[in-house]
């Protein structure tokens, strides 16, 4: 399908049309700083009113990941009073994630690979198959902590069905998949003109000049840089400030580790096996039966995360483990930065 454009004024009507027969989630205003009204915080939520959608949003605490892979998710229900009669709980409904930034689209592509390999995860894959992703291109970095250009996530090749490029009064609309083409049918789009194409080109040029490389090496060297830093003193130095609170993991758009608990009904008649986001930074993450803990030291856990994000996930899935969104740095009370760490280790080999 050739590129099309949608007038900004027609956006709400399109969102409403999508909301008519599916759940539509997108970024909305969460709260405003009392002492600085310009300081707005956004969150991803199910839209109740098309007008709530804020395409001018910046990074949220949790990303669109939580609609594909919820922070808490019921896996299987069973009975305790009679035979176990396990019932898988695989819930999904037609959903559109509207306004996914390139970093998060890239992260979704990583999750797709991670949850699909080895033993495919039916809970994730069922939701994923029922979810359309409408991307939203970025004209400028959202925060100094982001280094998406370095991590190759600023120009995603997958993880979205439609990509929107906001260009003043119009939005450039490119459908990337059949699902995307079907979604665009309900929008009042018109074919892009030569002027639109020039505006699109101008956006691309401005985008490229607004983002700057922040690492002193290319992404392809990151696994090697990490490997050579394994015994560096840098890990202990950084870990001295680390609370092991796990906020870097719980906010990460590519983290996919979970912990499983049994929620038993109050009358003990049955239960539900439930998973929630886990974190490799938590004290007990690598603890096994018998009490042995394979990563007892804070520094070894911190190093493990940096290796997961820069090396292991890449090697296991062929997809980046860190998309450079900067959520972990912003979530960190101690201001530990994955970007600064990747810079630092290059100098300590």
């Amino acid at each position, binding site marked *: 399908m050739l590129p099309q454009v949608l007038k900004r004024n027609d956006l709400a009507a399109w969102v409403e049309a999508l909301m008519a027969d599916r759940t539509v989630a997108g970024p909305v205003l*969460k*709260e405003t*700083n009392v002492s600085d009204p310009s300081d707005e*915080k956004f*969150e991803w939520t199910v839209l109740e009113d098309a007008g709530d959608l804020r395409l001018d949003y910046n990074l*949220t*605490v*949790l990303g669109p990941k*939580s609609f594909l892979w919820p*922070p*808490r998710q019921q896996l299987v229900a069973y009975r305790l009073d009679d035979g176990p009669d396990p019932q898988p709980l695989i819930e999904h409904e037609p959903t559109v994630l509207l306004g996914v930034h390139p970093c998060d689209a890239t992260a979704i592509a990583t999750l797709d690979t991670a949850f699909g390999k080895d033993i495919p995860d039916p809970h994730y894959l069922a939701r994923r198959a029922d979810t359309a992703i409408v991307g939203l291109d970025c004209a400028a970095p959202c925060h100094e902590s982001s280094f998406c250009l370095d991590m190759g996530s600023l120009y995603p090749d997958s993880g979205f069905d439609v990509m929107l490029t906001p260009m003043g009064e119009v939005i450039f609309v490119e459908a990337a998949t059949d699902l995307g083409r079907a979604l665009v049918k309900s929008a009042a789009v018109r074919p892009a003109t030569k002027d639109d194409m020039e505006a699109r080109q101008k956006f691309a040029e401005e985008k490229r000049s607004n983002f700057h490389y922040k690492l002193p090496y290319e992404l392809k060297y990151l696994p090697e840089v990490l490997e050579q830093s394994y015994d560096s003193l840098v890990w202990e130095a950084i870990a*001295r*400030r*680390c*609370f*092991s*609170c*796990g*906020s870097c993991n*719980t*906010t990460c758009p590519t983290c996919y580790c979970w912990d499983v*608990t049994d929620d*038993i009904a*109050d*009358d*003990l008649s049955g239960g539900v096996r439930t998973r*929630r*986001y886990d*974190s490799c930074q*938590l*004290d*007990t993450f690598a603890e096994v039966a018998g009490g042995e803990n394979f990563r007892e030291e*804070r520094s070894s856990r911190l190093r493990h995360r940096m290796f997961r994000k820069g090396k292991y996930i890449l090697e296991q899935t062929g997809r980046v483990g860190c998309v450079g969104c900067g959520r972990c740095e*912003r*979530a960190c*009370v*101690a201001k530990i930065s994955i970007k600064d760490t990747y810079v630092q280790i290059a100098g300590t080999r």
Partner: protein
Amino acid sequence: MADKPTLAFFSLACCEGCQLQVLAANEKLLPILERADIVRFREASDGDADHYNVTFLEGSIVTEHDIERAKAIRAKTDVLVALGACATIGGVNVIKNFQESDDVAEYVYGDKKDWFPHIPTRPLKAEVQVDVEIHGCPINTCEFLEVAKCLLMGKPYRQPNYPVCVPCKLAGNVCLWHKGVPCLGVVTRAGCEPFLCPSAGHKCIGCRGLVDNPNTEAAADVMAEFGLTVEEVFREFSLFQGIYDDVAKMK
């Protein structure tokens, strides 16, 4: 069929608010009462027994007499559950440990202070073996029910050993630190359910005590960078967590 297990509730130095949290479970207590008999519960009934399968003991130890009572209760009990912050970490009662013992007694009892001999506040586990801990000031009803279910099913209760930041992020909250509010969630044991304080914009004041391996030094450093004085940092921590050596040494 064997007799139902017996449950007992006792209080030491505390406000007895944790017992009220148990009663607040209302009809959710019924399935437990079908499977167990409460033989001692001053807030709800009279009566007593010679032996308890499970005792929920709230309150901290602040007198020699409390030690005797705790030991006597322990001797009649199979499984002892420390109920609430006073029982698990001494609770707010530990604040008096950082003041002159005589001044504290005089403040409360005036010229009758000699009638009420007291000792530094300590949690139950300082004097008797505690089998299960339910943290919080007050405890939350959900966790009480969870522990009760585990006991009835004969499986261990796995208390959370990660900081409040985990459920806080899962709730999608904007970090209070980023709003200029130093919050003890970074080192405080999670398990609050429903997750109330930070979701309502209130900082975590640490009522569930520290996680097992907290980085209190980093917390103190980060708070200092944030602009708090050493005294202020200690005050934040000592409201609930003064019993820990890591906190006591900040003074």
